[in-house]
């Protein structure tokens, strides 16, 4: 599809056709939920095998990524470098396993490659390095970098008239960084309404409750006060995620902030809201227990 054809589609108001389209024309929520369960299982395996941290942070943003990659973004695994593609930047780069698994299962590369995660000499490190895999849009890991990068991409999209959207997934702890708020001030001044900040608001950062470390609340009001079109949703409600993330631009002329309330460690009961799992990796028994709970084998 050429950029011109895309423009016409945009003008007609036709949105991107999701991969997992249900019978009624909306997203197939059952299929999305099944994919989210599968990815969660894979993350548990990856963390166990590699002995790496940040499993709980990865689990908390899985539904956001599943909604985005399977039902929102206009992307094509056959053409990962298409200039007109929608972008998703995982600014919370410590959730790299979630990104790698989502991209692999979405068809950007073989799921077998996930086995090389964190293996010495492999491209898939604990934080995504530049160009480490198709459709990894940015090297992240130090927090507070994704939103400015996304701003630059959104500005380029306007100048190049590609009309694509740029989604940046941030963590709540990341909102401690001043650069996030520099970007938050800048984007509305230029009405970059195809830029979306999705905040994976799991209420924890590495060593404490995010609210106790920095006064984040009221987060939605903060983004709204900065001039963003701010929405507050359940970050594990796939229907709400798809609806809110699809409605971009939303007609307000403002960039969109989605405060997605999530649970750290979501999906595995013994990890949920337990911040020890920011650093712990599951042992073999815990992997079995997690798989049972996810209905996987």
């Amino acid at each position: 599809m050429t950029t011109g054809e895309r423009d016409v589609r945009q003008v007609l108001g036709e949105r991107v056709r999701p991969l997992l389209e249900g019978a009624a024309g909306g997203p197939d929520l059952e299929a999305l939920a099944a994919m989210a369960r599968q990815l969660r299982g894979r993350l548990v395996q990856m963390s166990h095998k590699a002995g790496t941290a940040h499993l709980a942070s990865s689990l908390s943003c899985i539904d956001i990524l599943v909604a985005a990659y399977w039902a929102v973004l206009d992307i094509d695994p056959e053409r990962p470098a298409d200039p007109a593609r929608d972008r998703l930047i995982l600014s919370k780069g410590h959730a790299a396993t979630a990104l790698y698994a989502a991209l692999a299962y979405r068809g950007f590369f073989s799921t077998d490659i996930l086995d090389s995660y964190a293996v010495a000499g492999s491209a898939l490190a604990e934080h995504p390095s530049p160009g480490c895999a198709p459709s990894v849009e940015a090297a992240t890991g130090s927090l507070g970098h994704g939103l400015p990068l996304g701003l630059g991409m959104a500005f380029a999209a306007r100048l190049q008239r590609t009309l694509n959207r740029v989604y940046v997934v941030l963590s709540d702890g990341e909102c401690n960084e001043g650069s996030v708020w520099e970007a938050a001030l800048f984007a509305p001044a230029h009405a970059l309404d195809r830029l979306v900040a999705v905040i994976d608001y799991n209420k924890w950062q590495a060593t404490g409750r995010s609210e106790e470390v920095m006064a984040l609340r009221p987060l939605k009001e903060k983004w709204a006060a900065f001039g963003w079109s701010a929405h507050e949703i359940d970050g594990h409600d796939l229907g709400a995620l798809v609806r809110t993330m699809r409605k971009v631009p939303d007609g307000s002329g403002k960039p969109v902030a989605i405060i997605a309330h999530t649970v750290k460690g979501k999906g595995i009961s013994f990890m949920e809201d337990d911040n020890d799992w920011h650093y712990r990796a599951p042992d073999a028994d815990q992997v079995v227990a997690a798989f049972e709970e996810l209905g996987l084998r």
Partner: protein
Amino acid sequence: MRNTFAREMTVLGSEHDGLVLLSGDIGNRLFDDYKRHFPMRFLNCGVAEANMMGMAAGMAQSGLRPVVYTINAFITTRCFEQIRLDVCYQNVPVVIVGVGAGLSYAALGGTHHSCEDIGILRLLPNLTVICPGDATEVQLALRASLHHDGPVYIRLGKKGEPRVHKTPPEFTIGKGIRVRAGDEVCLLSTGNMLPVAVDAAAELERRGISAEVVSMHTVKPLDEDLLAESFWRFSAVVTVEEHAARGGLGGSVAEWLADRPPQRARLCRMGTGDMFLHQAGGQDYARRYFGLTSANVAASAMRLHSLTAGRRHRVFV
């Protein structure tokens, strides 16, 4: 240098469709001409350097050619991590232009001095570090940077420096420019100290010593061929820069030297010291404070020359 940069941006705007100028809320009226021609390709990014640098990297990732401009001290140390990660780690072609090299803004106080930027930036993989010696070199460096496939840092002085090159020299990134030929001592200058080095060479000539002057506009990558030749041909090599000698061009040359067998020439590094300058006073005063005068450069070269000129030249293989 500053006004030449602004003029050249307007020229280059027509040559590069993807050229975008990002300014950190400085240069009031400086870019009026550029803005008139390319209103969509100018962004005042406010006083938010981290966001500005990250945005530039994002633009470059999408195929634009961003040029980021603000005061030297702020476009380097303030957003160092964005330069390191967004620009250099991702290796995207952002041109970073700082105005107010070294002591150019001495009168504004220590917050506006910039004597560490070469040192920290030359450590970054993928980054090219260019310190043009005069306005002509600014023009050539900017042009070359936009054809370079990778990030570049350009360190400008301020406005109104004397023009050293009467006609445009051949300019290649990573290759020093011989400004004046000589055969006894060699003055390697980087950036806005070039006119001082030229004056020092004239002073040396009056005292009967023939001095070569080279504009080492590129500190990284270092012109190793030129260094090899210089340390073989001359009795003394003096590096001259408005930057801390440790870590700057002087530091670079000293590192190069340390990895080699003893050379004929000895090295003297002229630069600012390991201290902040707490006093008021303009650039000339600040240069005198740090001994960065043509008389001092000439005296250092003479001292070194007298120590080494009598030594028999040995060839090491």
